[in-house]
């Protein structure tokens, strides 16, 4: 095993390990016969670091050994990598938010009654954490359930000056006019049977095609 082999083997080991490896561990990776001296290993690591001069990586020595890392100047420019993709809100979350917006103050029980299914604690927490809704009081019934209302933050997010600016309920029955009013994209014609069958609640990501499912309904919702 020549110097180059040792060098590239160590490089691959550190890149594959994803954790610091100490000199004994590095040495132990070699087959007995070709095991280099520790000094050779240190020399190889130094050589690698020289080669990395221009590159974005470096082998640094930390408490538990040698670790391959991205240089900090480079890491700064890579922040986007760690911006986690925003999770998608569920349909249940949107429905809950909409009910709070239009029917506030409203309790969780009342939301559940209208939706016909239970509202998970998680959804309520999401909405509270996002600071779109707040507890405005407690209803005087057993359990003293919290009543929810929307916040200024909610209005700000949707560029509304006041709740009044939410599209009036009545207009919801006329989806077409609402679409025009909100400047929503035109809905394509689609076969009746596709949409409802393939994407049941909860198991899908709300996609563009969902508009279609909704677009059909106005006639049924007097």
């Amino acid at each position, binding site marked *: 095993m020549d110097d180059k082999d040792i060098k590239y083997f160590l490089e*691959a080991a550190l*890149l*594959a390990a*994803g954790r610091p490896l100490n000199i004994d561990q590095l040495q132990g990776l070699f087959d007995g016969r070709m095991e280099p001296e520790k000094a050779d290993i240190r020399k190889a690591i130094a050589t690698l670091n020289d080669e990395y001069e221009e590159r974005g990586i470096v082998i640094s020595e930390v408490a538990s050994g040698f*670790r*391959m*890392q*991205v240089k*900090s100047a480079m*890491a*700064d420019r*890579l*922040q986007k990598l*760690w*911006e*986690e993709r*925003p*999770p*998608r*809100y569920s349909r249940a979350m*949107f*429905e809950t938010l*909409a*009910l709070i*917006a*239009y*029917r*506030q*103050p409203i309790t969780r029980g009342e939301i559940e*009654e*209208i*939706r*016909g299914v239970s509202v998970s604690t998680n959804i309520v927490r999401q909405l509270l954490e996002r600071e779109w809704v*707040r507890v*405005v*009081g*407690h*209803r*005087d019934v057993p359990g003293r359930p919290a*009543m929810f*209302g929307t916040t*200024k933050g909610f209005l700000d997010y*949707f560029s509304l000056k*006041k*709740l*009044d600016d*939410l*599209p009036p*309920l009545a207009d*919801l029955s006329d*989806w077409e006019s*609402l679409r025009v009013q*909100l400047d*929503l994209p035109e809905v394509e014609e689609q076969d009746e049977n596709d949409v409802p069958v393939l994407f049941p609640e909860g198991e899908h990501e709300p996609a563009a095609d*969902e*508009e279609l499912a909704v677009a059909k*309904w106005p006639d*049924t*919702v*007097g």
Partner: protein
Amino acid sequence: MKPELTVLTPQDAPKPAQDEKQSPAQTEMPFAIVDGEPVTTLPQDLYIPPYALQVFLEAFEGPLDLLLYLIRRQNIDILNIPIAEITKQYVQYIELMNELQLELAGEYLLMAAMLAEIKSRMLLPRPPVEEDDEDDPRAELIRRLQEYERFKKAADDISELPRLERDVFVATAEAPERKHVTKLPDVSMKELLMAFHDVLQRAEMFSKLHLQREPLSVRQRMDEILARINARKFTGFADLFDPEEGRMGVAVTFIAILELLREAVIEVVQSVQYAPLHVRAASSVRLVSEEDE
């Protein structure tokens, strides 16, 4: 002497040898220990000692798999295998299982019945005219075996693909000062409205609930009133009205107060007759104002 037989569950299976890649065809872990020896492969012939039968059966993925094994292990060109012979062997297995009082899965029995039927048909003289394709159970059996074997082979092919964690390792370098930022999802008014539309529609379809289509301004005003009052002290009823809003505004405020009363969120009190009305949050209602959160 009856040998000791242990059927292993995946949890207590010993760490398998490195031979997975060499023999991926049958199984990935020893499925039994017979006489203390781990059994990792099926025998090359059909002479499976009865005591080991159970474990071998557990190595099969069902009656199709067993049948396929019997056919393939003949070590004869498949062309020369009379289906009757295979049937006989299969039924022997089933009988053996019965003798040993092994729990028989229904699928195995069903297959045995199907094979028995095929066998009996083959003993009958051939009808002079073409049989109806649909009625020939041999055709169906062969179709199923063929289809199954294709996917059995495909499963082997997939299991031999280079696998992350086993054959492929991702190269990584640590980034020291990385900051975790979780972006919040974007929500559009459209999504909100669609959800609302949806829930309204459901509510109307499935319950007697009739949502009133009241003007939002009342809800808004209810909200504003709630923000101004609290449970500890009284707020003048008249103070809730802003004459500058005009007749409409006053009416909206009034309806809002009535609605809050109806929902028992607020109380209106009067110390004596004709004294000014006062409003406060219902004793049982605790209001939280947005500012002091």
